[in-house]
């Protein structure tokens, strides 16, 4: 009797120990597994792939019914559409594979330095593995449509990605056109305005009168001349000058500014 009890004690001890270890390990593993599955995927959902499969699965839903209906359904999603969808899927794959390639080195360096956590690396590795399978899947699908397409589909997809990229960039430059044009028009107007102001200022100094618009100015120039001589085309040079001032815009007006002392002289001549 005594023997049994003393024997039971170590056994009980052992069973408690092993039992607790087992529960701990199973709990730990479960938690780890859950954590691994709850890891965020590296990429956002693959729309192109989903569309491709959605299209693919539109067909079989009808095939279970009558034969005619099946044919109709097959017509509904023609093979060319599926090929296009597959091509779209391949281009997105190319983009992702390139992204992974460019990120890999930087990420591994960061991991070595301990700047990023281990779960990030786990997510990355998982994404890499998924992409490998995805690419293999696309190649086999392509070969199923047209034998040998699997070899070239990713070449085509690669060119498509790059072409889209360059067009997008050029488009960005071309979009700025309106903005640039508006800016330049405004600037041009500004320059002209500034020029006119300068002109007026010069004029003001010249005739010691407050600055006034060009039209008034020109009248001022020719008014005395007109007073002295009738506005007949036959008479003096000063008249010709005045016509010039009125006809042209600022370049001519600026010429008038320079000529205005001369104009003054002519006035005197006219008075004589």
């Amino acid at each position, binding site marked *: 009797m005594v023997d049994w009890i003393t024997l039971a004690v170590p056994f009980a001890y052992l069973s408690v120990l092993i039992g607790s270890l087992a529960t701990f390990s199973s709990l730990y593993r479960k938690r780890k597994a859950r954590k691994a599955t709850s890891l965020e995927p590296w990429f956002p959902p693959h729309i192109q792939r989903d569309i491709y499969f959605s299209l693919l699965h539109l067909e079989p839903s009808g095939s279970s019914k009558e034969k005619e209906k099946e044919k109709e359904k097959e017509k509904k999603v023609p*093979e*060319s559409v599926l090929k296009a969808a597959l091509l779209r899927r391949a281009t997105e794959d190319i983009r992702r594979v390139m992204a992974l390639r460019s990120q890999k080195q930087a990420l591994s360096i960061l991991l070595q330095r301990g700047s990023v956590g281990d779960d990030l690396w786990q997510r990355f590795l998982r994404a890499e593995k998924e992409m490998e399978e*995805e690419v293999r899947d696309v190649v086999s699908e392509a070969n199923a*449509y047209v034998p040998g397409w699997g070899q*070239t589909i990713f070449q085509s997809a690669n060119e498509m990605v790059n072409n889209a990229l*360059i067009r997008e960039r050029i488009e960005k430059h071309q979009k700025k056109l309106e903005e640039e044009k508006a800016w*330049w028009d405004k600037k041009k107007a500004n320059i002209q305005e500034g020029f006119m102001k300068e002109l007026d200022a010069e004029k003001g100094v010249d005739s010691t009168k407050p600055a006034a618009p060009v039209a008034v100015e020109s009248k001022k120039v020719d008014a005395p001349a007109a007073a002295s001589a009738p506005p007949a085309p036959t008479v003096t040079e000063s008249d010709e000058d005045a016509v010039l001032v009125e006809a042209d815009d600022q370049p001519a007006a600026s010429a008038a500014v320079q000529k205005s002392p001369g104009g003054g002289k002519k006035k005197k001549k006219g008075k004589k």
Partner: protein
Amino acid sequence: MARSVDLFTQYPLIVDPTSKAISLSTNTTTSTSYTHSQTTALNTELTTLNTLHRNLLSLETPGGIPPPPLPINPKRTAQITKLKDTANTAFRKNNHAEAVRLYTFALDMALSRPGWEPVSLARDELAALYANRAQAYMSQREWAEGLVDARASVEAKPMGNAKAWWRGGQCLVEMGRWEEAKAFVGRGIEIEGKESEGGKELVQLMGEVEEGLKRAAQATASSS
């Protein structure tokens, strides 16, 4: 447990029976389960898919698949070259507005080149056409347009494109944007090198730009 590779999201797609265009089904029960951004993303994707599909249908290759990037289909290249040549002659005859119009046609054609054709070819073509159109704009003293085209040209082909660098710089100079001109021409010199034929012209332009910068600085100093 199914692996994530075998899973996909089923979208409620419908196919238009006549045009074969794919679109998202507009059932209220299904469309409410997606957020707004999701539907817009899906719709843009579907439009690109439909355009691609139409492009694929116009192909004459067996099986209706895009041909490998090489060899190139010479048809479109010949057309673009022809348009470019007519535009060049118009330009030489000082018919600049007409040249711009023809270059624009050629550009449209080059831009609509199907995506699976080699990107290097598209880049060369676009760079040359944009540079030429920039020149035609510049002859009409339309500096803003010229600048935009020159920028597009160097974006398409930065190397060996000294003309476009020079034209862009010249446009900026004409508009009095000295700082930008300095940056632009500087980058051009960096890429082209000072020794090359076009590089020398760029260096010369750089001298002008620096003088202009000095003058602009003096003007602001004296006015303030």
